[in-house]
């Protein structure tokens, strides 16, 4: 038997070295992030942006206060929106379920393991960002009121709880599940709720009756909930690859593990492809479904609580944050399915791809329309001084952003399989595309709000910075494609 004394006893120096290593590593991650340099850059600037945004929103809303409106709920509303949007972006401060940094087979005692795991989890970027965020809000609170701090803190905790719940639900296997049984069943029920809410909202607006008297606030709430639910379920992963190989299309559903070959030239092919693409676009990503539902529930409950505090504030509180949130949630590129094309295809393939994307845009625009409709009624019902600029901004921004995503999806083929020479269009589920979308949205909002406050120069600087960063990210993406350029050019000649 070997003498183990040299390297098995608990050594405080080794423990300290281990803790130092973990702390250093995690703090580096806070600064540099776990991803690529450019993504990290976005991650670093995201927090100041959200705080600037909150500050700008606060100033803007203080102006509204001068005209007799209470500022605090608005600020809380804006921050609520910011928080939800950032959480859905995946980089916002949020507590997460603790993970084990120390492998179970490592020869450490229970105390050392607990200490190391504790340090590791406390220094995770989400938590550090969370502390920074709450601290900053605490500093802002004397100016804007303590409700701001309390609502941020409550929301931070609530969103963490949401994260926990989603994780637990997703990782928990149903005890009765047999092999091959899906973890979560198809979401028929939430779709039904969405449709019922939509009908209720429309009834309340246009066909008043004793049960549902005309009430724009409630109608707006119904429509908003419906829009959120439906758009949440239509989220990004389409689970469909459309491959245009020589002479035929191949529709591959990752969920159903089915493959359909469709002759390229047949009349049926385009109709079938369009139907398939729209159907799959409306499919839900399980995680997003759960999150969407829980966010909705949370908002309804928090709204009810706030209703007791502020009456009509309820509707504004709910609707203002949710409109942009919904657009982040259904990030602009996410609507577009991955489309793979073989270089051997003729001119028809490109045109068909173009049509598929165009048709894919329609459900997205429709859902956004429902949300905007809800927003207008909500704002009008909340007070008589509708912030028309804000509404106008939403109306202008939404199709613009979709258009950017749409065009980008078409012009940025990103993936080539050397064996079969396929070019993939669309950025479905792409990390960078999501981040760009989030960043773009926040920058747009920041610019508008800063400009509304009269800080035109600041708005200009932010716009310039945003342009440069976006250009850099796109440039990085393009350089990745360098090796694939020949193929790309061959296709688009």
């Amino acid at each position, binding site marked *: 038997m070997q003498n183990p004394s040299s390297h098995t006893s608990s050594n405080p120096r080794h423990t300290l070295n281990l803790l130092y290593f973990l702390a250093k590593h995690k703090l580096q991650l806070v600064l540099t992030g776990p991803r690529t340099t450019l993504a990290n850059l976005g991650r670093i600037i995201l927090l100041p942006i959200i705080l600037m945004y909150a500050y700008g929103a606060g100033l803007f809303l203080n102006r509204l206060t001068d005209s007799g409106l209470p500022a605090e709920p608005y600020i809380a509303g804006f921050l609520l929106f910011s928080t939800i949007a950032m959480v859905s972006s995946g980089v916002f401060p949020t507590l997460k379920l603790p993970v084990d940094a120390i492998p179970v087979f*490592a020869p450490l005692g229970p105390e050392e393991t607990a200490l190391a795991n504790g340090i590791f989890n406390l220094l995770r970027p989400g938590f550090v960002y969370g502390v920074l965020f709450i601290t900053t809000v605490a500093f802002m609170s004397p100016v804007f009121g303590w409700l701001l701090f309390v609502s941020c803190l409550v929301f931070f905790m609530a969103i963490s709880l949401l994260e926990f719940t989603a994780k637990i639900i997703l990782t928990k296997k149903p005890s009765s599940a047999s092999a091959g049984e899906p973890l979560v069943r198809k979401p028929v029920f939430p779709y039904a709720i969405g449709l019922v809410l939509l009908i209720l909202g429309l009834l309340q607006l246009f066909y008043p009756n004793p049960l549902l008297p005309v009430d724009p606030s409630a109608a707006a709430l119904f429509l908003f909930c419906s829009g959120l639910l439906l758009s949440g379920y239509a989220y990004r992963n389409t689970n469909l690859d459309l491959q245009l190989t020589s002479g035929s299309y191949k529709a591959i559903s990752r969920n159903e593990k089915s493959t359909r070959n469709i002759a390229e030239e047949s009349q049926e092919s385009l109709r079938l492809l369009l139907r398939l693409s729209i159907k799959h676009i409306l499919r839900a990503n399980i995680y997003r479904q759960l999150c969407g539902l829980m966010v909705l529930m949370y908002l309804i409950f928090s709204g009810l609580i706030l209703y007791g505090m502020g009456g009509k504030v309820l509707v504004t509180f709910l609707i203002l944050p949710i409109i942009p949130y919904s657009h982040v949630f259904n990030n602009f590129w996410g609507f577009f399915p991955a489309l793979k094309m073989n270089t051997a295809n003729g001119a028809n393939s490109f045109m068909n791809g173009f049509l598929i994307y165009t048709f894919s845009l329609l459900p997205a625009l429709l859902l956004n329309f429902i949300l905007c409709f809800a927003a207008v009624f909500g704002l009008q019902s909340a007070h008589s001084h509708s912030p028309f600029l804000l509404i106008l901004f939403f109306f202008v921004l939404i199709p613009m952003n979709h258009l950017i995503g749409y065009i980008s999806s078409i012009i940025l083929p990103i993936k080539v399989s050397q064996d079969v020479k396929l070019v993939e269009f669309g950025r479905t589920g792409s990390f960078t595309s999501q981040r760009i979308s989030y960043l773009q949205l926040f920058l747009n909002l920041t610019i508008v709000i800063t400009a509304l406050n009269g800080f035109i120069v600041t708005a200009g600087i932010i716009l310039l910075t945003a342009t440069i960063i976006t250009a850099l990210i796109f440039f990085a993406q393009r350089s990745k494609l360098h090796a694939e350029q020949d193929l790309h050019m061959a296709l688009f000649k």
Partner: protein
Amino acid sequence: MITAHNLSRRFGNKTIFSELSFTVEPGSTLGLLGNNGAGKSTLIHVLSGLISSNEGYAEIEGYRTDNPAQLRLLKSHIGLMPEFSSLNPDLSGYEQVQFSGLLYQCSEAQIRKATEELIPYLFENPDDLQMRCRVYSTGMKKKLSFILALMHQPEVLLLDEPFSGLDPRTSRKVIGLLNQYKASGRTALVSSHHLGYTGQTATHIAVLHEGKFVFEGGISAFTRDGATQLDESLHQLLGDSQSDEQAPSLF
């Protein structure tokens, strides 16, 4: 040295294995074979102290798996390569080596040997290890896990599917290292479905089937009945030579 005394393990009502007793002497390598779900990984987990046995116990270098006070010492003598990666996704390969060095209290010389000799030996482009582990391919993760299992020069090596995901050239290098390890008088247990590779490194074979060892002995005894390859012997032993004929007609 590994010694198992009447080891039994159940999950709920399902018995994974029962009353397994065996010894792996220093300087020998046991090739652990068996079908999917036979309990090979579970046996490795029990031997390495990750999960407890329901009955019986194992001894690794004299430290018992059923004695919580000895678990830490037991783990420090084992180099474990789990079937699935246990790498921290946010660490680079080199950081992972440093981290593992801290966990196992490795000397500077051991860490240097891993980074300057083992990594260049197994990785054609060691610069790839500057990237974070989350982007590694299956093969890269396997190679790095193998290095981490070896770097503290353990007395006992437990490898769960070490060859899956490795290219033939790297597999040959891994076999070379395993044979070197064996020649140094240390003990290894290799669970694998790659029978060819297992045959090149194992001195003994144990076949786990329906919770029992249906074969346990030297590798020459395993192939003595005219079978020239390990897979033929295994098929004969498990009685599944008719599997081709039983395949459903799909096409």
